[in-house]
């Protein structure tokens, strides 16, 4: 079975632009979470979606938005990019959203560089 996949692997944008990152969860997983990992730091939680509904949101500005599709894949959108948005964006999937102990399976990430 394929693991969590993310596209693109790398992306270069300029300040003020918009970016869309994509994530496909493991088959059968209904929950997708997004994390931002700035170089030298641990991941920071951005969003969780379950069954196409937002179930959690971290401390990120409204420039960040996401959605989940009927096939459980997800998109993370960032508007008006800032230099500080440069980071590795990780997607993680799990079967459901209600189990805190459920293992999250991470994708390889998308490296975003904002110039």
């Amino acid at each position: 079975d394929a693991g969590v996949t993310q596209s693109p692997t790398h992306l270069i944008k300029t300040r003020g632009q918009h970016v869309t990152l994509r994530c496909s969860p493991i088959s059968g997983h209904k929950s997708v979470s997004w994390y931002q990992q700035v170089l030298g730091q641990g991941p920071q939680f951005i969003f969780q979606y379950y069954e196409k509904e937002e179930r959690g949101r971290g401390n990120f500005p409204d420039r960040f938005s996401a959605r989940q599709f009927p096939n459980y894949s997800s998109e993370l959108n960032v508007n008006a990019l800032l230099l500080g948005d440069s980071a590795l964006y990780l997607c993680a999937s799990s079967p459901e959203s209600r189990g805190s102990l459920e293992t999250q399976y991470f994708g390889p990430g998308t490296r975003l560089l904002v110039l």
Partner: protein
Amino acid sequence: AQTVTQSQPEMSVQEAETVTLSCTYDTSESDYYLFWYKQPPSRQMILVIRQEAYKQQNATENRFSVNFQKAAKSFSLKISDSQLGDAAMYFCAYRSFYNNNDMRFGAGTRLTVKP
């Protein structure tokens, strides 16, 4: 807000030896979950071990074990018989029992394994 602190930015161990990675956390909650994740240079985050706060017994997974001290809010990871493949960034993470949509990570410890 819950914070997770990893005081060792870098650690080094000789192959076949044992190493302990430290993690402390701050919380006012009594129920929560703790995790250690491994992030090799390929970037894919992998769950190493997890611990439920209500369990007094320390979790063990093969060569990996934890020392969970709830009163001290400490959660260290011991790697026995270290192997070259253990070289990676290790992240300690906290997840609230009451708000399972949020997971907080420490800044990470880079482990080097010397042959």
